């Protein structure tokens, strides 16, 4: 891992334009450097190398902000005449940097001389100014390709169009737009593509890097959907049992606590998968006041889930009956099919409606999560996944989610969860392998509900 990356990119720009933020978001390293809305928060040059196929492919270097490009330009003009701009810069770097006055600018120029190209980060909310021209002239004198990156483009104040035309007037036609806080996968791909344009020799490498990052992102998304699905199935299958004399409120409270813990575990897993701070989102309290029998015969949800269940049980029984019919050469004229279907449905019904009464007889009462709670959990987690997919690693405010609407994120997801509810009764925790039957369909529906990355 100590090998030097094949491509070195310096991230440069005026102070406070989001250079450190860009590094955080591009490297998914939310702890990188110091990000603040004040000037000169970054004072040294530090880097992160992105790995592709096990070797460092692209190193990004964060640099201090340019704060006095005009002053430095003046000083450079006062220097003894150099053969060309690059020689002028070398001459400046070899000196004492104006008695340390342009130490910060010297670091930027030195890093740029060491790099293959630079991303010039621009706060697109700022008006286009002459000082930018000074900065670009200075950076251009280093003899490295510059790709301007318009940052803050998701802000209302940003005026990217003006910037684009002004940059084009300065001869910078290859430009990228980005917002380090509101993440956009397409913008990131475009940024790498633009780098590929100015670094033609490394275009293949950049493409491979981008592909491996996209594959990784999809894998992370799937794993996050899986974590959400596991939580939903687990909560759906939870049964809290207690002797009859225990007050109902106590059981409800125990159920609520265990559901909240399951949700918190899921949120932690999802945040960790996306490599965000675990503080980035705290699920609000569950409004669980009352658990109840899921399969209250009058509950439409329950009836629906029973319909599904009886249907599939009847289908299985029927299939067995068909096999018997076939085995006896059709002599039973399909009687076995009918019988099998009936038995399947009866078995399923007995499991659903008989169990509670059996428990009562045995002196137990039992509570399960209300379908409304399952809906709330599902909606909240899907909204969280969506928010995280649009969150850059530079974001330092907690995830904001608008109060979620009532009901399930999608009808197929509801059906999948309610169906899994019966399969997972008794808990998934120990038997890892039950995942494929109970969780996979739910995970698939969560992925569909979350939408494109």
């Amino acid at each position: 891992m100590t090998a030097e990356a094949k491509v070195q990119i310096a991230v440069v720009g005026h102070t406070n334009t989001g250079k450190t933020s860009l590094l955080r978001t591009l490297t998914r390293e939310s702890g990188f450097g110091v990000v603040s809305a004040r000037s000169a928060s970054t004072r040294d040059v530090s880097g992160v190398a992105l790995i592709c196929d096990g070797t460092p492919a692209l190193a990004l270097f964060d640099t201090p902000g340019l704060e006095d490009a005009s002053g430095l330009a003046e000083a450079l003009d006062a220097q003894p005449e150099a053969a060309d701009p690059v020689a002028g810069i070398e001459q400046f770097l070899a000196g004492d940097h104006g008695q340390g006055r342009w130490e910060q600018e010297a670091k930027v120029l030195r890093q740029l001389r060491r790099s293959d190209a630079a991303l010039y980060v621009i706060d697109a909310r700022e008006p286009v100014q002459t000082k930018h021209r000074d900065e670009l002239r200075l950076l251009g004198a280093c003899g490295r390709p510059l790709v301007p990156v318009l940052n803050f483009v998701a802000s209302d104040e940003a005026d990217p169009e003006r910037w684009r035309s002004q940059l084009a007037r300065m001869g910078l036609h290859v430009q990228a737009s980005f917002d380090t806080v509101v993440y956009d996968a397409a913008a990131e791909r475009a940024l790498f593509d633009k780098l590929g344009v100015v670094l033609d020799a490394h275009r293949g490498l950049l493409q491979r890097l981008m592909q491996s990052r996209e594959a990784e992102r999809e894998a992370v998304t799937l794993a996050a959907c899986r974590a959400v699905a596991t939580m939903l199935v687990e909560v759906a299958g939870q049964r809290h049992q207690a002797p009859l004399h225990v007050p109902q409120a106590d059981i409800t409270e125990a159920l609520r606590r265990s559901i909240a813990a399951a949700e918190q575990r899921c949120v932690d897993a999802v945040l960790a998968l996306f490599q965000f701070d675990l503080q980035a989102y705290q699920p609000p309290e569950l409004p669980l006041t009352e658990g109840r029998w899921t399969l209250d015969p009058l509950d439409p949800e329950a009836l629906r889930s029973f319909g599904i269940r009886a249907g599939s049980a009847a289908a299985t029984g029927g299939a067995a009956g068909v096999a018997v019919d076939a085995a006896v050469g059709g002599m039973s004229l399909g009687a076995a099919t009918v019988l099998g279907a009936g038995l399947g449905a009866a078995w399923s019904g007995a499991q659903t409606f008989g169990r509670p009464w059996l428990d009562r007889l045995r002196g137990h009462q039992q509570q399960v999560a209300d379908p409304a709670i399952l809906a709330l959990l599902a909606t909240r987690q899907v909204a969280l996944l969506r928010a995280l997919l649009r969150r850059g690693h530079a974001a330092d405010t907690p995830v904001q989610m608008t109060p979620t609407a009532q009901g399930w994120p999608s009808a197929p997801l509801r059906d999948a969860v309610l169906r899994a509810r019966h399969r997972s009764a008794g808990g998934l925790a120990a038997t890892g392998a039950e995942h494929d039957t109970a969780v996979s369909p739910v995970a698939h529906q969560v992925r569909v509900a979350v939408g494109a990355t």
Partner: protein
Amino acid sequence: MTGAGTDDTPCPSRLADRLLAALVCVREEAAGHPADVPAADAAARQTGGDFARRIRARAAALPDAPALRKAIQQVLGRGLGLLLLVVALAGFSGAFAAAAALDAGPPASLPLVLLLLVGSNLLMLLVWLLGVPLSRRVTPSLGRCAMTLWQRFAGGRAGIDAGDDPRRTVLGILVGGASGRWLAASLGHAAWLSFALGAWLSLLILLSVRAYALSWDTTLLAPATVAAWVHGLSFGPAALGAPVDHLFAGTAGQTVAGQAGAQWLLAAALAYGVLPRLLALLCCGGLWWRAQARFGRDLQRSGYARLRRRLMPDRVLLGVTDAALAPPPAAPPSPPEAATAHAVPWPSGPVLGLWLDDAGDRRPPALPNVHWHGLGATDTAAARTAARAAVAAHPQRPVLVLARATMSPDRGAERFMAQLRSLTAAPVQLVLIDMDRLVARGPAPCRQRLADWQTLALRAGLEHRPLQWPEGLA
């Protein structure tokens, strides 16, 4: 499904290693986060290879891996013991069933022997086959049943806390899902195979060493019907090379089965008893093998997926490559109350105004009694030189520097204002404009930015004019 393309190629690994990885995964998922053991992570990265392989390497390098391995060996050992026990019992019962069926004479009835040794076997095979479509539903209960049994068994004997007994978890992994389904089926087939083999061996030995009177006769069926049935069933024995043509050496209405009948019986027991079960066992065993190969490979499970960053890092921090020489300049002490007390009044009369950056041709703010002069932009080297000259030319004229509040206060501005300060005897003050845009960014950034401007003005030595806090923010 996985990030790197190499992840899908299975590499050889032992069942125990995969179980260990799955066990660690279940445990860490229950704990809510993967254990932090940097040494194990480093060992896994050292191992290299695909993600699944690194996960196994990490699991093997965890400090309590030996204990977990022991638990796995115990479960596998007990499972094997159970298998052997069941197989042995079934083998013996097959042998006894064969002996008993032959002894139910004389003469011993060939149809009866066949029915007892092969019929029951085939019937149960058929029942199992019919149950296969249902088994997805049934095995979870089977698995839970096994777990409950284990709990009773282990809990009763050793008083183990069932909750975090790794053996319980291992068992759960083995008997859950597809693995459990095919494991249960394989166990059944193994037992029946052993039954059939025991019966066949017993038949072979008994028929070789003793003389039995064998008969095809039944009470109800006519010899011709029996013959038709036997012919119908003969394709199996024929395929195994048994004589099928002269089976019925009938005398006086009796159908006595001789040596040929015994050979036919042995061949039929082999063809209809042993071979189907062998085939079923091979199938189910193969399916179980496939199912167990997925232990520790379900890389989307959060227990595994959360390890990806640690075991297959996609980036490496290079650290500081060019460190800052000096610590950041300390902010000058500026107690806000004292500053407010000594607030400088607005100048009046002719005032030299300068835009700190290129603000186009905007009008300056209207201040009472202020006549603006100058008002060039000063964000280039040349403009700053000109501005310095203008200030130096009127050393008695107050200077107001106009800056957009949203601009980042930087060292360039500070240096420039300090230069202006040194060039004139009159007051130099900073005026922030466009406050509404700053306010729109929220109270915290606004307060921060104003404080930074204040600090900058103090450092540049400007006449102190406390910057106005917008309404409702102070």
